[in-house]
């Protein structure tokens, strides 16, 4: 049986005290799925978290604290913390989108300056295998490799060591 929690609108949150769980109705137009995921992820260590979509607009988040014996007070606390985390995640997501260019630029500059160019040892261990990149113009091939004629064998079958292009 679901019951409302005191002070929280029943249309948004209901609790199943017997099951030790609480259901939140989250408007996915206010809180993008990415934000719901981000908030849910934070609670996976402390709660069993179940998401469902009862209708196109809303997502239902069910939280069941892993520690047995969750009463109304504990459930209210989880609802509060989840709501705060959800808001934080939504806002952080928005900020990251708005400032993506500058964040990426600064990060690239910081990391590339700290890393510096690859050393000969780094290049030696780099995988230049067949699947590394496409080279339709043969730019990465050496001149000899690109233009070498097929060796013509001598009369006795030995290839000409002075094979000319």
């Amino acid at each position, binding site marked *: 049986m679901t019951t409302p929690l005191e002070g929280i609108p029943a249309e948004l949150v209901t609790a199943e005290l017997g099951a030790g769980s609480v259901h939140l109705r989250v408007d996915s137009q206010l809180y993008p*799925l*990415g934000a719901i995921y*981000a908030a849910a*992820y934070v609670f*996976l260590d402390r709660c*069993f978290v179940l998401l*469902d*979509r009862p209708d196109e607009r809303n997502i239902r988040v069910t939280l069941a604290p892993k520690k047995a014996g969750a009463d109304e007070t504990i459930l209210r606390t989880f609802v509060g913390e989840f709501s705060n985390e959800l808001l934080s995640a939504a806002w952080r997501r928005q900020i990251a989108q708005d400032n993506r260019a500058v964040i990426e630029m600064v990060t690239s500059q910081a990391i590339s300056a700290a890393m510096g160019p690859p050393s000969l040892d780094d290049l030696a261990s780099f995988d230049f295998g067949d699947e590394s990149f496409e080279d339709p113009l043969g730019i990465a091939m050496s001149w000899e490799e690109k233009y070498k004629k097929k060796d013509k064998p001598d009369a006795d079958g030995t290839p000409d060591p002075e094979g000319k292009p």
Partner: protein
Amino acid sequence: MTELRLHRELYAGTAVDAAVKVYARFAAFELVEEASHWIVRVSSKNAARETQVARELANYALGTTIRERGGVQ
């Protein structure tokens, strides 16, 4: 038998499969596909274990889904 209804828009099928594999030795599973949900039916002789496995499996599937789909869109 405990039935998990995992919405296709919210849970990746690959994540659900991975979760079932992880918990395979702790219970018996039946997987069914509905239009809107992945259905995982969990059965165990021990009722408490059955509930525990179902919950842990759901968490695992959700965590894996989030990791697969994570990042700013």
